[in-house]
């Protein structure tokens, strides 16, 4: 399958709403706006789409098709890996296209991440919710009664172990928070554009769940994003330069449905996904020009950088220091501001940004970017990787 799949599909359209705290728009409108924008951006019509991968929750593929006016859905599937879902969806889209099940696949994400808990007085109400997938049962039965409801609290169980095992200093992740905020100043859609973050601000912020302080945590937003994937052959006839899907993978910790009984608390899904993805794409970590790393929390970025091979275990704090991950550094990271400072769209905003970088049209453009790496991370440590490249 390998030679028929990897490098034979491409991202040809991207769509993205604003990232806001409290939208006037219904969550379905956000999802459909981003979807239509991605189709239009590709120079396609809804009738050209015949594969749909919907968000994990909120809207079904059938509804999305009906509202967009997609007449013939030949393939759909839902991917339930929390924040790892959108990036993992790319491999499923590519499989459907390479296998001849679909021609043009729409991958959507959108949610009311801010308003679900804090609706505006005049907001249009919704009963639509995310699909928690495998996480719901574990949190309900085993974590919430112990006072651990939020993702920050769940992940702090292994982040504490990380800090303790390697003697990670308290300021280890500050560089990630500040790089993302600096990049957000350059991104026209970033929620935190116009709100810089100083090191003093970072240090003064209160803890949420140790070792995570306020600015180690991403910004909850209402937003939606979408991409269109097609064959590389068709992509070369469309409006934008093709962004080739060179390789991707997913991975799950063992067991995936709970944290406590893993042989190694620090071995996450991405530790299994990363080697698979690099092998499939035929590239190595040091070939990559742009890193779009799933940044729900800064420390989770550190763990992923180590899993990807950018640093030895415990070595990520040195990797992110000294401007290495800033625009102009060797490995610019989250050039749109990331979930930490652009907004939280489950990492499909990372795929959108990587696509723009490889088209050469990003707001914070990395000079001569040819290869981009995107990660997804979700649920209780599931991971996904996508390696994208400029068409040569």
């Amino acid at each position: 399958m390998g030679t028929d799949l990897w490098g034979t599909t491409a991202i040809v359209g991207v769509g993205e709403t604003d990232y806001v705290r409290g939208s006037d728009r219904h969550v379905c409108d956000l999802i459909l706006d981003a979807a239509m924008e991605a189709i239009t951006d590709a120079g396609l019509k809804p009738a050209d789409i015949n594969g749909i991968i919907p968000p994990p929750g909120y809207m079904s593929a059938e509804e999305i098709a009906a509202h967009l006016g997609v007449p013939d859905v030949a393939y759909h599937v839902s991917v339930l890996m929390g924040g790892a879902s959108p990036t993992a969806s790319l491999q499923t889209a590519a499989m459907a296209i390479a296998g001849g099940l679909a021609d043009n696949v729409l991958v959507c994400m959108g949610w009311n991440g801010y308003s679900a808990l804090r609706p505006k007085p005049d907001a249009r109400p919704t009963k639509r919710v995310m699909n928690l997938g495998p996480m719901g049962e574990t949190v309900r039965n085993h974590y919430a009664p112990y006072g651990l409801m939020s993702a920050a609290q769940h992940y702090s169980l292994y982040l504490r172990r990380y800090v303790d095992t390697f003697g990670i200093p308290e300021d280890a992740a500050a560089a990630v928070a500040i790089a993302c905020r600096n990049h957000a100043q350059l991104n026209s859609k970033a929620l935190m554009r116009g709100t810089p973050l100083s090191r003093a601000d970072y240090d003064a912020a209160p803890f949420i769940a140790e070792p995570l302080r306020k600015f180690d945590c991403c910004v909850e937003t209402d937003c939606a994003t979408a991409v269109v994937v097609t064959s590389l052959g068709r992509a070369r006839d469309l409006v934008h330069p093709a962004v080739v899907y060179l390789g991707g993978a997913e991975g799950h910790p063992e067991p995936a449905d709970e944290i406590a009984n893993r042989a190694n608390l620090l071995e996450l899904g991405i530790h299994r996904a990363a080697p698979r993805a690099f092998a499939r794409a035929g590239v190595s970590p040091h070939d990559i020009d742009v890193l779009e790393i799933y940044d729900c929390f800064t420390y989770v970025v550190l763990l992923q950088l180590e899993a990807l091979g950018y640093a030895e275990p415990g070595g990520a704090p040195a990797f992110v220091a000294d401007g290495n991950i800033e625009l102009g550094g060797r490995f610019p990271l989250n050039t749109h501001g990331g979930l930490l400072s652009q907004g939280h769209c489950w990492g499909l905003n990372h795929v959108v940004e990587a696509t723009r970088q490889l088209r050469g049209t990003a707001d914070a453009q990395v000079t001569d970017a040819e290869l981009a790496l995107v990660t997804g991370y979700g649920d209780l440590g599931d991971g996904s990787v996508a390696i994208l490249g400029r068409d040569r």
Partner: protein
Amino acid sequence: MSTYVPTPEWIVLDWHHACIAAELLCIQRCVGCGRWRHPPRRFCPACQSDQATFEPVTGGGSVLSFAVSHRSLDPGWQAHAPYATLLVELDEGPRLLAATTTPPGEIRIGQRLAVRTEALSEHFVLVWADPASHDEPASMAPRARGNA
């Protein structure tokens, strides 16, 4: 502590009922090969047997990791913030979360613990763990019987 008390089902409910009946922390044990496992699973990952019992454990264990929460969505827990939640490795091998009366600053990875259970309903027990020598503040101490 917790305002939220779940109503478990299936084999998780069987586990809670076993702990409540024994008034001790019980853990699932494979009839086929004798291995302990948690959370409850249908098949033994080592020998694939689906025959298992819930047996009392010694109640000894140690801190493998812990969370320190400064904010909680649960009002019952928020009242105690910052509070620690322990990831306990039992001497029998399985691991589980436990509430603790110990202040976060006094917890260390590797510390020895004694666990006990508190029935919060007819269908749910909460697991507590503290260093064996720790004196419990009266306001937070559950009325519960310990294993150790």
